[in-house]
């Protein structure tokens, strides 16, 4: 049995007087113990909402969540607020996007680490402080004794994210969810943070769900990749398979829009046409069809079903033929 089994997870936001909005639409994926799984897509594809739904952090009012999220055999969606509170930080840890705003500005770093140790491991403050020092040491923060007494604004961006990682891993959770952990950081720091996370999850045997829009992150870290569009998984495959042979036009488009070092000088990037619509109607054909270079008549009439193709899940009527280089210019 997988550590985390997400089945048909659907999140519908309902505001008074507004059309219901399906942010996540029947997402399923598994995470094996120690495995790293990527959720990839552009802004608004539902990847962050998926992670918040797993953590039980979506607002109680206005968000309707269906499906199952089973962790070690327990459906987290069926747990009470108190039961979920006992698990968060202990069984599941989370690292967020912006390390400055994710740390409390008026509480010293030390207390922000120890409070989670006190809560879940029942450590007295003194013992927790020693453990906090070890944790900061482990995530590569120099002079941890001094840093424990400092406040978030006194740390650099990279160090803040290291501190957040230390907090998320403080209780040795079996699952860590990282929501764009490097987006707010400098490029050089991004690489450091990624290699730190890779090292830590390997050392501790932690399973990792990596949420990102950055395929570079996926390439360096993930075992399996789920590509999301409009709240649905459109392609799922092992990482090397996905990179070598992207079949969904969206995945192909994402890969083609990455700048390459071996490209000829002056060669243009191939962006994906248009942007994500506010409310994506999967009910009438494929949501990606309006932006898709491969779109056929059927694409706007029939919603493509998920098909299993030799260990790859694909939701497309007209997938990219293996070997196609960059996507062609899309007529506007």
């Amino acid at each position, binding site marked *: 049995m997988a550590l985390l089994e997400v089945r048909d997870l659907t999140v519908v936001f309902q505001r008074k007087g507004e059309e219901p909005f399906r942010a996540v639409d029947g997402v399923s994926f598994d995470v094996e113990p120690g495995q790293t799984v990527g959720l990839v897509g552009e802004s608004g594809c539902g990847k962050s909402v998926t992670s918040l739904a797993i953590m039980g952090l979506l607002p109680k009012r206005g968000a309707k969540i269906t499906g199952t999220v089973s962790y070690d055999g327990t459906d987290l969606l069926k747990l009470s607020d108190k039961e979920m509170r006992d698990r968060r930080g202990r069984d599941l840890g989370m690292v967020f996007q912006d390390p400055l705003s994710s740390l*409390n500005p*008026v509480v010293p770093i030390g207390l922000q680490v120890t409070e989670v140790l006190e809560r879940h491991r029942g450590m007295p403050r003194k013992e927790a402080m020693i453990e906090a020092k070890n944790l900061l040491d482990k995530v590569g923060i120099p002079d941890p004794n001094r840093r424990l007494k400092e406040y978030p604004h006194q740390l650099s961006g990279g160090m803040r994210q290291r501190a957040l990682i230390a907090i998320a891993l403080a209780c040795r959770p079996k699952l860590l969810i990282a929501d764009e952990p490097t987006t707010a950081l400098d490029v050089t720091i991004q690489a450091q943070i990624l290699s730190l996370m890779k090292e830590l999850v390997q050392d501790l045997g932690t399973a990792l769900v990596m949420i990102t829009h950055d395929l570079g992150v996926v390439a360096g870290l993930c075992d399996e990749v789920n590509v999301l569009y409009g709240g649905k998984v459109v392609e799922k495959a092992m990482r090397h398979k996905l990179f070598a042979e992207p079949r969904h036009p969206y995945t192909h488009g994402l890969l083609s829009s990455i700048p390459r070092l071996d490209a000829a000088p002056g060669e243009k990037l191939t962006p994906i046409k248009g942007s994500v619509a506010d409310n994506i109607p999967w009910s009438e054909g494929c949501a990606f069809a309006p932006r898709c270079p491969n779109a056929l008549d059927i694409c706007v009439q029939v919603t493509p079903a998920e098909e299993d193709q030799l260990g790859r899940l694909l939701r497309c009527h007209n997938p990219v033929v293996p070997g196609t280089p960059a996507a062609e210019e899309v007529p506007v």
Partner: protein
Amino acid sequence: MLRYTIRRLIQLVGVVLVLSLLLFAWLRLLPGGPVSALLGERATPESRAALTKQLGLDQPIVVQYFKFLGRAATGDFGVSTGVQPGDSALDIFLQRFPATLELSFFAILIAIAIGVPLGYLAAKRRGSWFDNLSVVGSLIGVAVPVFFLAYVLKDVAASGLGLPSSGRQDAIDATRVTGFFTLDGIITGEWDATFNALEHLILPAIALATIPFAVIFRITRAAVLDVLDEDFVRTAESKGLTAPVIRRRHVLRNAMLPVVTTIGLQTGALLSGAVLTEKVFSFAGVGEALAIGFERRDYPVLLLLIIMATIVYVVVNLLVDLSYAVIDPRIRTR
């Protein structure tokens, strides 16, 4: 920090000097004057002239002002002509200031004790009937004039609850130590005196607390709403912390910054409410003295009390500024 404090206190000296000059001129511009107030409309011109001379009001205003400054430098602020004729203005201030301080303290205590928790709960249940009701209630708190509420409390609540509705204490045998009647009773062990003083404080303190309560409630609600949307609150939730820890350490500690500013400003502004409240409840404080002083054109008392009120206001605001550094490490370590 120390340099900042000293600079602010030096500024205060300038403020007080300019204020005293403006006040001096302004009080003289008011129609009527101490002479008419003391002698009435039908006094003879001779007796008027005599009293004018006796009070030194016959001299040019500039001379009067510098004489005042000269005497003030030695701690002599003149003699009351209307509030408590014959008493020195300073004595009147020293006698009455503890009363106003006591009243303001209890008023602001009530305002904070109800306003902050209610503001937190309303923000937490934003849009609920509880939230809407509290917001409407706070609007009423701001809108109802203090004197109206004071009279309602005095006439309805006092008789209904059997609470005293005027004065600071009944004529009981109480030892005076500090001038704070509640404190005196605690120091001397005369608990009945403390209790009696508290009974006298309840209604005026409630009347005085309504506006600060309403303002503190609204600022707390807005501040908590802002903080609840912050990423670090979500981080705290992701750590599985218990609700009380999140409330205290992560939400309220951050939301308190604007609330502390408001509490400071409201404390400073309490005096304007105290004038009305003390008058209605015949509460012998600075506010009542100001009200009587204006009726009887008691120049020395008005001058001293308004200047002291200004000093209190400036000092309270200085304390608020300094308290930021205690609450917010981002200011402390800059």
